[in-house]
Structure formats: structure tokens, C-alpha cells
């Protein structure tokens, strides 16, 4: 192999390595894009709590951020089923946070060492709870479930909503910034 061939070979090798590095980091960067961070995030047609909702997006769904306004973020889902509209900003988290929560190897967290990242990835999920429950039979998870069973959404408190929430504002004469004034 001549000196010239050597240089060409090295150049090709460098380009291949650089291309591989770019591809790797492009994938990693994509993996850290925004996702839905709540169990079910409501998506509104307008950035208002009582505006019409256009759907719900599940935890971990990849989204694109299109616009922000007063704590609201206009999003669209990255893949089908397509949902687009407004969510509140704290309904969104980074892909890294999501990966950490579900235990995926995609997590990249500068504040923890690699072992901690792996540990955090497996931490505090239904499996951990199951093990903890088995070891601590006195812990009263049944009452936590009962507590969580009572749910009234924003629409339930409107006059057309679900009883007893539908009458709550009117009978209490609560003049609200969201639900309006009561005479």
C-alpha cells in the first residue's frame, strides 16, 4: 500500500467513523424529544380549560411542539393516530425523563452516574410497588386505590357535567375565573 493509498484509506475510515457518530447522536437526540408525561393528557382545541377537547393522548406518546402561549403548548402527535391541539405545558416531559421512568436504555442524565441512570430507570413503577407491598403487608394500598377512585374532570363542574360536581359551583355561589360568575 502506497503512502497515497494510506491517506485515502484513512480519510475514508474517518468519514465512515464521523458518519457513524453523527447517525448515533442523531438517533440519541431524536430519542430525547418531547413526550406526554401524564397518564392521559387532555388535548384542547383552544388554550382554555373549558374549550372543546379534541382528544386525549396517552403517557409516553411522542409529540412535536408547534407553539407556546401562557403556559399552554400546541402539539401534534409524531405518528398515527394524529392528534393536534393544545395541552398544558406540564403535560409534557423529555424523552430522557420518560426513558428513565420506564427503564429504557435511552436515558441520558448528566446528574447521575451510569449506574444511577440504570437504577432510576427501574425505580418506582408498578413492579417496585408490587415488591414493596409484598414485603410490607401493613401498608394500606387499598385505601390509596379508594382515594384515587374519586375523579371529577374540569367538564364535570359545568352545569351539563356529572352530579354532584355539576351543581357544586352554583349551590356554593362560587364566582369562578374558569366557570364564570354566579348570581
Amino acid at each position, binding site marked *: 500500500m502506497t503512502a497515497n493509498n494510506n491517506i485515502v484509506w484513512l480519510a475514508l*475510515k474517518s468519514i465512515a467513523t464521523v458518519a457513524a457518530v453523527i447517525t448515533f447522536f442523531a438517533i440519541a*437526540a431524536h430519542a430525547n424529544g418531547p413526550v406526554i408525561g*401524564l397518564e392521559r393528557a387532555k388535548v384542547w382545541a383552544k388554550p382554555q380549560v373549558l374549550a372543546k377537547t379534541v382528544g386525549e393522548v396517552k403517557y409516553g406518546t411522542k409529540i412535536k411542539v408547534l407553539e407556546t402561549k401562557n403556559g399552554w403548548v400546541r402539539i401534534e402527535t409524531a405518528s398515527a393516530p394524529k392528534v393536534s391541539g393544545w395541552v398544558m405545558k406540564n403535560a409534557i416531559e423529555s424523552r430522557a425523563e420518560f426513558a428513565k421512568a420506564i427503564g429504557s436504555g435511552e436515558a441520558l442524565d448528566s446528574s447521575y452516574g451510569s449506574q444511577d441512570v440504570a437504577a432510576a430507570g427501574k*425505580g418506582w413503577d408498578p413492579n417496585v410497588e408490587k*415488591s414493596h407491598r409484598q414485603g410490607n403487608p401493613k401498608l394500606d394500598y387499598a385505601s390509596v386505590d379508594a382515594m384515587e377512585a*374519586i375523579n371529577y374532570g374540569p367538564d364535570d363542574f359545568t352545569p351539563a357535567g356529572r352530579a354532584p360536581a355539576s351543581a357544586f359551583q352554583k349551590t356554593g355561589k362560587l364566582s369562578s375565573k374558569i366557570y364564570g360568575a354566579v348570581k
Partner: protein
Amino acid sequence: MSKSNMSKNLALVSVLLLALSACATIKKAVHKVGEATGDKDLQKAESKLSPSQQYYFGRTLAANFFSTSPYVSDKAVSEYVNLVGQYLAHHVDAGKGGAGPFKGFHFAVIKNPTPMAMSAPGGFVFVSTGMIEQLQSEDQLAGVLAHEIGHVMHEHGLDEIENEAIRKGIVKAGAKLAELAGADDAEDVGKVEAFSKVVDSGVGLFASQPHSRKHEIASDKFSVRLLARAGYNPAEYAELMATVTSGGFATKHPPGEDRLEAVNQTMVKLKYKDTRAARKTRFAAFKSAVARVAGTGVRAPAAAN
């Protein structure tokens, strides 16, 4: 240096430079949402527990609270406290975290004669039968719940674990438990027990540690603003704080003059209507129901005046 070595070095340097710039890109991507929304909390969120982790951690804390202070399952009690609390929670401004925790807010009355209110990450709020006995109106109950909503929205509970090692310990313990899930030989069961103790120490820390003055004042201001937004009378909350400050009744973590002053200063700037009388009857029914289940002879509030 030979031509070949120089080429190798150049290639290495270019790869390193690209890698470094790509690292910066990744870090930027991690903070993308925070940058897009201009939200500083979101930008640093990766170092905290995620909403789902907070939720599962909160569930364990709640299960722990209930093992010493039983959950009051009476329908009239649990429905009412959730109507007040969840109605309030829907008034949290979108800019201040309006969508709430992972599965929203949930409220519980706990059977305990000590006047106290607590919250856990993930949206779990507790108020004791002893506290309800001291409250004189729905507006005061709303003030107490709004204060706890403030602690959860600001993630004060997590912030106040100042010792990073403790937090890492909790996370690691959780991970180890997951790893051992389903383990059935004696040695592994022993490990699960050992790690459960570590988790319990974290639970104990959360349950016993009072919030800092700074966080209490932040939640007081949050509470007063939320009350006004929802149509409640924040003066009732100020009155409750004044009663506690002047020694009217003892709480686990009593407020001071500084908190009362912060509440009064915030209230002056707010507009609200006084419609307290409309809520007297339903609050009296709630107090009677609490008295029944607590067996403490809780008195109904004085007649409307």
C-alpha cells in the same frame, strides 16, 4: 510525525470535536421542551423524579400514612373533600402547572385527632379529622387544600430532601426491588426486606420533615390566589392562620407572623366576592359526617352571621 500519524490524529480530533458538539446537541434536545416553553423547572426537570415516578412514590407514602392514620371511606366525607379539592385544582393556572400531577389530584380525610394537613408527590393530599374539627367554613377547608396543592405543584416535598444521597438511595432501593421482583429464595427475600427498610427511611423522612418557611410562604400565597380564582373568600384563610398564630389551636407545624403578613399582603391585591353564607349548610353536613366517623364529637360551625 509521519503523514499517516498526522492523518490519524486529525481524524481523531475531528471525531472528538463532532462528538463534543453532538453531546451539546443531545443536552439541548433533553431540554428541548423546557426551552420551547421557556419553563425553567421543565429545563432542569431531568434531574428530578418524573411525574410517573412521583406518582408511584406518592402512592407508597399515602399507603404509609394510611397505616397509622386510617383513610375515612365514608362516602359523604370522601366525596365532599374531593369536590372542594378537585374543583380548586381545575383553577390552577396553565402557566403554573395546570394539568397537575400524573393522574391528577386526590384528597383524603385521615382519622387522626391532631390538626394537620399533608401532601405527597403525585397529587395526594390529606387532611386530618382533628384539623376539620377546627375549621369554621368550606372556605377554610379550601384554603388548607389549596395550600397543599401549592406544595405539590411547586414540588416542595422533593426539593426538601436536601441530601442528594438520600434521594439516590431511595431511587436505588426502588431499582433493586424491581430487580428482585418475583424472587422467592430466602437470600433474595432477605435482600428485598433490607431494601424495603431503606425505602421506609425515605418515607419516614417525608412524613416527619416540615416544609421550610420559604416554601410555606410560597404555598400560602399560591393558596390565597387560587381561592380568589375559584370564588372562595381568602379572608377565611387569613382568619384561620390568625387563629393558629395566636394559639387558638395547636398544629403539627404552626405558622408564624411572617406567613400571616404574606397572606394579608397578597390578599389586598385580589378581587373577590363574599358569598360564604351559601356554603354554610353543606359544610355543616360535612362536619357532622366527619364527627360521626371520627367519633370525636366534632361540633358543627356556629349559625350563619
